[in-house]
């Protein structure tokens, strides 16, 4: 145990330098995914048929192919048609585009779980569809989507490790470097697993707090409690 602590003391700073890359990648991908998901969900729920079909195609492609294939497509494939991205940008874009497909589906589920009467009542009072979406549907769906969105956020945080495959020195890559440096792979990957756990745990706790702070009776139910 003391050896492990000593190992941690020596190598933790080197590993922690990867946290910035990992979290930066994650944050950019989540924001990109969120913005794109809003467009996708609008297309899926409210837009005309051709736009709906395009959005559906997008979602099926990104959910139906491995993330690693998507990343290689963007980083190694696109240069052939003149689009060259550095590894960080390529990874952020790949993870963001992939996440958009999932986030859109979670948003769609939340919107469609709302009773139709909410939109009808808003429109019956003279609100435009935009007003009804902004003031009624989004605030309600936004609250309902937090648990699934939280899950997605954690999945994507772990997915940032695929950036290792295109040579980005994020957390996982650093752990491997430590392993080859010391030949203590077990310790290196234990350390990096702990770092990932702290990161995902923090994200989960923050989003759980957000869920509790924005909770409204009758709209979202308290954990483990039937309403």
């Amino acid at each position, binding site marked *: 145990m003391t050896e492990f602590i000593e190992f941690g003391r020596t190598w933790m700073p080197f590993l922690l330098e990867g946290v910035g890359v990992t979290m930066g990648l994650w944050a950019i991908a989540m924001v990109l995914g969120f913005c794109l998901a809003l467009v996708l969900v609008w297309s899926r729920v409210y837009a005309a048929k051709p736009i709906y079909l395009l959005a559906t195609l997008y979602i099926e492609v990104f959910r139906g192919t491995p993330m690693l294939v998507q990343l290689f497509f963007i980083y190694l494939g696109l240069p052939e048609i003149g689009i060259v991205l550095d590894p960080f940008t390529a990874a952020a874009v790949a993870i963001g585009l992939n996440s958009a497909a999932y986030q859109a589906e979670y948003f769609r589920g939340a919107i469609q779980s709302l009773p139709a*009467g*909410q939109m*009808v*009542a808003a429109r*019956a*009072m*003279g*609100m435009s569809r935009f007003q009804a979406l902004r003031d009624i549907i989004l605030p309600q769906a936004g609250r309902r989507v937090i648990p699934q969105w939280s899950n997605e956020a954690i999945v994507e945080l772990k997915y940032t490790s695929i950036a290792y495959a295109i040579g980005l020195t994020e957390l996982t890559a650093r752990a491997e470097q430590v392993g080859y440096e010391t030949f203590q792979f077990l310790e290196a990957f234990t350390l990096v697993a702990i770092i990932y756990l702290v990161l995902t745990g923090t994200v989960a706790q923050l989003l759980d707090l957000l869920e509790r702070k924005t909770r*409204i009776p*009758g709209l979202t139910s308290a954990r483990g409690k039937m309403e």
Partner: protein
Amino acid sequence: MSDTPILSVCDVRKTYGGVEVLKGVSFDLARGESKIVIGPSGTGKSTLLRCINLLSPPDGGIVTLDGVRIEEKNINQIRAQIGFVFQEFNLFTHLRVLDNVRLAQRNVLGRSRQEATRRAQKELERVGLADKFDAYPAELSGGQKQRASIARALAMDPKLILFDEPTSALDPELTGEVVQVMKDLANAGMTMLVVSHEMSFAKAAADEVIFMEGGVIVEQGPPDRMFSHPEQARTSQFLQMITHDHQYA
């Protein structure tokens, strides 16, 4: 007092999936008048209400509000002038009662926050919910929810209010408080079109009873005549059936 009816419904038709639900319905509603629409379920009563404010646009016919034809192009303006009270209340789940009554005053009518608040408080007090401003809809009883939704409609200063079976989702002991609010409104001169089988409202507050069946108006007239001497055999049959049910309810 103008002679133009506040609401004029002329030959309204609506077909759903090949079934003609409304087969040409016409009637007028004068300012301050309240009419109640009764009839067997599946007769198109609720559809009629939804055709008036284009929640489900009619396939034919003309509806005018205060002489203005109700069309898709002016629909948001028109809807702001027509209150709609739903069977299922449809209060906005994420908003406290006060905000439910304030929201459309703000974003549709463009009232100031202060004015919207004052009106919301006034209307909520009027329906007996002065102590529920800060409650969420889920924290209210069914009767309180429906009264809040009536306050929400009133705060918009509507030219008329449409009631779509306002007491049907309520436990029997809660219908009374909602019916009382509706009677008070009718007596205060609110123009109302009510789809309901609430006989106590029909007898005490309706100026006219419209009996619908099979997508048409079978008979209409003042409540005392409709209840004592209906002209159509079908009307008296139906009235007997529902009053019978009520005795044993």
